[in-house]
């Protein structure tokens, strides 16, 4: 199935006789022909019967271009084969993520916020087709059936295409009836194929990196060697005369130099030949070891208490009176997202303004950012969303960093030449927007029976959200929720549990990285739970379960996944010689995941033999995609804790390409088995929740095998070797 990636494409393909169903900005269902332009549609039906689902979330691999069409096709009773997909244009009002109120993808919200909306659109379209058929046949709509794209009554059948024109003249129901989940046919089908598999296996899938426009020049930026440095002087004489070199200009904010070439290679090569004198007076000049000790120093006196319900004096008293204290200090490095497709944005002039070609994660931010830079009205910036070659959070910057660079580079050339702004891998790894460095120190007070009486948890990290447009939503009383998520709001029933937070300051830009604060908070929390269980002389699963008792919904669901993962991993049985098993369980993005990692040891090196995962994400919409996201989250998380870190020497990033930032490779990981808990709860996220338990489960497995607790990440830095 070919993916239509152009709004103009699907509107033209639709033709005058087709049906479009969508919502008004006020949220009311609307229908008509696509040409009427009265609203932006969620579903269109062509006269040949093709159904196009307009997907408001971008596709970075998480499966949204299959998931949202599943919701429509289910309620429409369409044949899966007749469903085509198109990405929505930038339109903040019609295509808002209902979880955030703006057009954006992130926080593992795509299915959760779309579940009712896209089903309503499908149900409305079905109802219109049924009423159109009833009119033609003179039948009662209640007697009309729809099956696999065919509308029928008393032996007569018509396809959707034949009914689309008549249906477009009807008024949609205000609240079309949605199916009872027991009638779901596509939702929950474990074999429903992805819509993007064909294009992504024959080379036809189009990413922003693949765009080429007539007359386009390619731009790479010469970036400062240290964060916060500014261009003092530019000398491009070395590039003069190189084949394809077009020119070089300092960006208006002096943050870098735009180097233009007639194609990618010309621009990349010219960049190497250009000399820049940098003003380093405002730059980050520290070594990352120094930054770590600065983080640790901040733990002595937390800036904020993230759990207002607990008096830290109560925690201190529990520790003072403890029979035993379990303590550990954790170091987490900066991490780069390193999506396979380096960042890229193409910008071209249009009659009214500009058009961007982008794997656009935050159209709501990008559209006004580019408009402001170019002095345009917001609606004069069009965005055509293409497939994104991964993101893991990187394409969702609050300041639309790389799209803004594209706009600046475009304006510098005069605003008439299409410009493709390309990042190389060196730009990507050296360019910041990292998962922030973090340091944690935790002290747990245990009584004679090994029960937790108090827990003093402190961490220092740079706030992701302070200074961003999202500060007012997610920073309260000084506490950036993303710094403490998964820790301060832990569902474990813990007495005298205090969380002290200090903000670290640096010009290095930081950003959400797949599962955000959970990346370090779950690690510290779940390793500490294991250390406490060990000190108490109890089984790690049983010990955790004892803090998850009762009717609280979160505890009940965490218990469910923990028991299932333990059972499937054979937790209660003996471990084979030279093997170790570790467990972790965590709630993030409203989903619940437990993982058991089994490792073996060979000549002092660790090998990951198997990962068993249990997930409760509510009603499973696309079970195979849920499994894929768990597999991906686990792999992404394990690779990072094993060996990834961004370090700085004198302010300069030391890892600039994959050999220095070695990603997880095929031989690093054995089988991953994913089990999905059946559930009738509303569906929740899967893109991120697979990641948080993976790292601590590995750490706990290594400790079970070797006695070494991995508290300094990456693990290889703490002396752990992998084979």
């Amino acid at each position, binding site marked *: 199935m070919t993916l239509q990636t152009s709004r103009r494409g699907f509107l033209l393909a639709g033709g005058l006789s087709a049906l479009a169903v969508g919502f008004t900005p006020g949220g009311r269902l609307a229908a008509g022909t696509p040409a009427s332009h009265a609203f932006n549609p969620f579903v269109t039906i062509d006269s040949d019967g093709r159904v196009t689902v307009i997907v408001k979330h971008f596709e970075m691999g998480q499966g949204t271009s299959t998931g949202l069409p599943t919701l429509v096709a289910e309620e429409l009773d369409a044949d899966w084969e007749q469903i085509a997909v198109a990405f929505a244009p930038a339109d903040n009002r019609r295509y808002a993520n209902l979880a955030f109120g703006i057009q954006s993808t992130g926080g593992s919200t795509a299915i959760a916020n779309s579940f009712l909306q896209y089903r309503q659109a499908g149900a409305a379209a079905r109802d219109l087709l049924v009423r159109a058929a009833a009119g033609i046949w003179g039948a009662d709509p209640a007697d009309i059936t729809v099956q696999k794209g065919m509308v029928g009554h008393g032996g007569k059948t018509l396809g959707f295409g034949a009914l689309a024109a008549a249906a477009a003249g009807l008024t949609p129901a205000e609240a079309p009836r949605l199916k009872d989940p027991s009638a779901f046919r596509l939702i929950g089908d474990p074999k429903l194929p992805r819509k993007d*598999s064909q294009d992504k296996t024959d*080379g036809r899938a189009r990413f922003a990196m693949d765009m080429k426009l007539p007359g386009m020049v390619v731009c790479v930026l010469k970036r400062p060697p240290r964060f916060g440095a500014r261009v003092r002087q530019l000398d491009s004489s070395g590039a003069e005369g190189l084949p394809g070199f077009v020119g070089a200009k300092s960006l208006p904010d002096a943050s870098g130099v735009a180097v233009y070439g007639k194609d990618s290679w010309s621009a990349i090569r010219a960049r190497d030949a250009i000399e820049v004198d940098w003003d380093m007076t405002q730059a980050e000049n520290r070594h990352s070891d120094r930054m770590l000790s600065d983080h640790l120093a901040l733990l002595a006196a937390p800036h904020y208490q993230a759990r207002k319900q607990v008096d830290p004096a109560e925690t201190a008293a529990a520790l003072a009176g403890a029979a035993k204290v379990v303590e550990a200090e954790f170091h987490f490095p900066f991490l780069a997202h390193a999506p396979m497709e380096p960042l890229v944005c193409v910008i071209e002039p249009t009659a009214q303004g500009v058009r961007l070609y982008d794997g656009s994660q935050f159209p709501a931010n990008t559209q006004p950012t580019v408009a402001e830079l170019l002095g345009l009205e917001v609606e004069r910036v069009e965005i055509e969303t293409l497939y994104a070659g991964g993101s893991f959070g990187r394409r969702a910057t609050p300041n639309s960093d790389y799209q803004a660079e594209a706009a600046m580079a475009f304006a510098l050339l005069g605003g008439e030449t299409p410009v493709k702004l390309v990042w190389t891998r060196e730009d990507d790894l050296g360019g910041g927007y990292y998962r922030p460095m973090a340091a944690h120190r935790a002290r747990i007070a245990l009584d004679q029976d090994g029960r937790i009486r108090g827990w003093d948890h402190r961490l220092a990290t740079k706030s992701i959200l302070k200074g961003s447009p999202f500060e007012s939503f997610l920073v309260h009383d000084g506490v950036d929720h993303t710094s403490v998520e998964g820790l301060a709001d832990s569902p474990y029933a813990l007495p005298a549990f205090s969380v002290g937070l200090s903000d670290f300051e640096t010009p290095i830009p930081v950003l959400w990285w797949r599962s955000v604060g959970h990346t370090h908070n779950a690690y510290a929390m779940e390793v500490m739970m294991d250390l406490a269980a060990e000190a108490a002389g109890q089984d790690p699963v049983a010990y955790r379960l004892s803090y998850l008792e009762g009717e609280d919904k979160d505890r009940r669901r965490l218990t469910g996944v923990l028991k299932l993962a333990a059972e499937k991993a054979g937790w209660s049985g003996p471990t084979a010689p030279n093997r170790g098993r570790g467990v972790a369980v965590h709630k993030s993005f409203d989903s619940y995941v437990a993982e058991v990692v089994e490792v073996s040891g060979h000549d002092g090196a660790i090998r990951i033999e198997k990962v068993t995962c249990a997930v409760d994400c509510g009603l499973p919409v696309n079970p195979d995609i849920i499994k894929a996201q768990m597999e991906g989250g686990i792999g992404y998380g394990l690779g990072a804790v094993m060996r990834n870190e961004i370090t700085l020497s004198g302010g300069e990033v030391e890892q600039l*390409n994959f050999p220095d930032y070695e990603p997880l490779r095929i031989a690093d990981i054995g089988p991953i088995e994913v089990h999905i808990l059946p559930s009738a709860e509303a569906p929740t996220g899967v893109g991120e929740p697979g990641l948080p338990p993976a790292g601590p489960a590995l750490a706990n497995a290594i400790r079970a095998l070797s006695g070494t607790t991995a508290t300094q990440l990456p693990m290889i830095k703490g002396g752990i070797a992998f084979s």
Partner: protein
Amino acid sequence: MSLTLHINGETHSVDAEEDTPLLWVIRDDLDMTGTKFGCGVAACGSCTVLVDGIATRSCQTYLSDLEDSQVTTIEGIRGPVADAVQQAWRDLDVVQCGYCQSGQILSAVSLLSEVPKPSDADIDAAMAGNVCRCATYRRIRAAIHRAAAKLES
């Protein structure tokens, strides 16, 4: 200067320097964008093509190295091995973001052309140079075994 390349059974004359990486000629000059740029230093495998049937990183292959060689990209793979690999990839829905998958598929085709029934160790060795940040590795391994089984039957 004008150089001759043989790609996907066709002969192309391109105007480029001898030290230009094959990757950029394929993508920017010949507009075949299925071959991807990922790192530029032959460390990720996104740019993998077949040169005389062998998986090769096109970002570190220079035009001067390709005299008389036959280059095959994702757009040009044909035959039973390619068909089996691509079908296995689709049957198992291997892809996520998909950006690395052209390279993964070409490495798999190269492997199965040499070793019709690869072991896990064979797969690990042949696919070691192909990074997938989405970590689709479990499915890649399963898809290669599936393609091998199909080719055997």
